[in-house]
């Protein structure tokens, strides 16, 4: 009897506790969006700053996506920009194909993002088959290789559309160009090998980026609180123990990896829709590492941390442009400082103390009612 009551209470408080930390994250993102929107609509944001809004959103989503792989699934992936690339280019093709069919840019962008996510998921699945059999460093190195392979493949891609539909050729030997597509009259080459995608429509908006961040947050935070999410975390914490309780490790790792690739693909599609030209070499090893830096500095498994780290560290080098030569120096110093702040045990303890003091102010009322009902 008392047991039952105890059960219900623990479950209730458990859910409340979880929901609270999730809602703080949503709250911060929504508040930031509102503030930035007010700034930009009142013209306080310079042209340059306004141009950063969409890419910042893309990199936040990339960081969230990679945090799913590295933080929650516990596997180091060094080729995440590859999925972004697949999403960007498939999204661009989709949006150009739909250009004549769909007038509404919002719907067109949404479809492009879905297409980007879909193709990145397929590529994620195909890469996952060999990669997820590997462990640790080997897995990391092979993802790095796949990231580069994707980049090189897209670098050879020549795509055009005409009234007969889509034409795709691969320029492996360097002897083919857009002319080899043999497009019918009125046709248009969208992707021209190493030149990349050119003359594509800029349909991305800050609002779309904001919505995409919320969706990515929603997917990942919901997942973590579910049976599937627990299985994924269990495989990370102790693979052998997870197998011993009947969890098919490969299945859950694959699910997390494909989901992560899909989210990265959606971020890529949004990124691609923000520019009128786009080259495959943008999504190279450096970009993968940049995103990894966001994730590591934001904290493994910490979604709000990823959002903040991606925002600050993406904007910082741009904001420092005035300092010209000192730019990278300052950037490096900031990276080191953040690393010390987030990894020094004493500072972490101090931060947690501050946090608990703040949250205890909120908790006071709740604790009272709990201690009265508890015993």
């Amino acid at each position: 009897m008392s047991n039952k009551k105890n059960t219900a209470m623990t479950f209730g408080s458990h859910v409340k506790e979880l929901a609270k930390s999730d809602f703080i994250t949503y709250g911060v993102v929504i508040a930031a969006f509102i503030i930035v929107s007010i700034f930009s609509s009142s013209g306080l944001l310079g042209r340059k700053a306004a141009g950063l809004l969409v890419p910042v959103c893309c990199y936040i989503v990339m960081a969230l996506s990679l945090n799913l792989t590295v933080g929650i699934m516990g596997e180091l992936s060094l080729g995440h920009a590859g999925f972004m690339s697949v999403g960007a280019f498939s999204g661009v093709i989709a949006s150009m194909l739909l250009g004549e069919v769909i007038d509404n840019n919002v719907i067109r962008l949404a479809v492009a993002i879905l297409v980007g996510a879909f193709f990145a998921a397929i590529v994620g699945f195909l890469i996952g088959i060999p990669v997820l059999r590997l462990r640790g460093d080997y897995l990391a190195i092979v993802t790095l290789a796949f990231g580069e392979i994707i980049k090189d493949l897209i670098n050879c891609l020549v795509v055009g559309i005409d009234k007969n539909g889509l034409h795709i050729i691969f320029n492996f030997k360097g002897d083919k160009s857009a002319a080899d597509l043999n497009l019918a009259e009125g046709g248009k080459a969208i992707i021209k090998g190493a030149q990349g995608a050119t003359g594509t429509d800029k349909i991305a908006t800050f609002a779309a980026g904001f919505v995409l961040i919320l969706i990515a947050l929603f997917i990942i935070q919901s997942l973590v609180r579910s049976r599937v999410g627990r299985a994924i975390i269990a495989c990370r914490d102790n693979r052998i123990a997870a197998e011993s309780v009947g969890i098919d490790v490969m299945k859950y790792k694959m699910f997390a990896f494909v989901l992560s690739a899909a989210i990265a693909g959606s971020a890529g599609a949004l990124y691609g829709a923000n520019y009128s030209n786009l080259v495959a070499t943008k999504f190279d090893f450096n970009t993968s590492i940049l995103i990894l830096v966001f994730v590591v500095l934001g904290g493994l498994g910490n979604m709000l941390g990823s959002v903040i780290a991606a925002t600050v560290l993406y904007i910082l080098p741009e904001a420092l442009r005035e300092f010209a030569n000192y730019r990278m120096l300052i950037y490096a110093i900031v990276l080191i400082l953040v690393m010390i702040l987030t990894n020094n045990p004493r500072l972490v303890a101090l931060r947690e103390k501050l946090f608990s003091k703040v949250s205890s102010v909120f908790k006071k009322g709740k604790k009272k009612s709990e201690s009265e009902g508890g015993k």
Partner: protein
Amino acid sequence: MNKKTKMVEVPSHAIIPERDLDKSPILEISHLGIDFGGLTAVDDFSITVGRTEICGLIGPNGAGKTTVFNLLTNVYTPTRGAIILDGKSTAGKSTAQVNRMGIARTFQNIRLFSNMSVIDNVKVGMHNSIKEGFVSSIFHGMGYFKAEKAAAERALELLDFFGMTDVANDEAGSLPYGAQRRLEIVRALATNPGIILLDEPAAGMNPSETAELMENIRRIRDTFQIAVMLIEHDMNLVMGVCEGICVLNYGKIIAKGTPEEIKANPTVIEAYLGKRKEA
């Protein structure tokens, strides 16, 4: 307290408790063996375990006891022999599949999901009985909340069995050693096994904890009506709780029998207890 169980011989020349005679055995192992390169770690290992039997697997360090558990759960693929679990062969099955067929285990060196809460560890154990698919893991509908509530209630029930409900929301890695060992047992029980394998459950426990564990092992068998197979160096626990005992030395079975028979067996005394004197 510890009523003597009458052990009877079955056709495969093994002994099981008389009360399990009318039920098919949970585990029939015949001629099981594995080689690691040139080393034969386990050889010609044959035993039968009754439905509700508590049996012990003992032997000096390095005898191959843990290896037997790893063979039973297909962590290692046997070089020779057959394992029949609940009437079905486990050959070619993965560790996860073998668990779903009915074997759960704990580990000699504790393997908890130490960053997760205690209750979540148990919920991971219940993985295959929670009705929640991939879609509802992301889009939490009514089904999700129903499944999660039922899971939390069941998990707390299991924790209550070991008096662990008050630490349900603590991090598993922060528990004291004894509690971690108990949590591993709860997690294994959460998979609804037909037999639970305990690898040195009393290691690192003080005498009062060990006594409590002994009681708990009997309670597990009585409440869940499952078989228990345990590896243990603590002879008081083994002799006090096990109905059938199997002694392993250098990978081979050197004796099988009731605790009384094992205690009186000269080969065992020489191989096992004799070694102790030397040391």
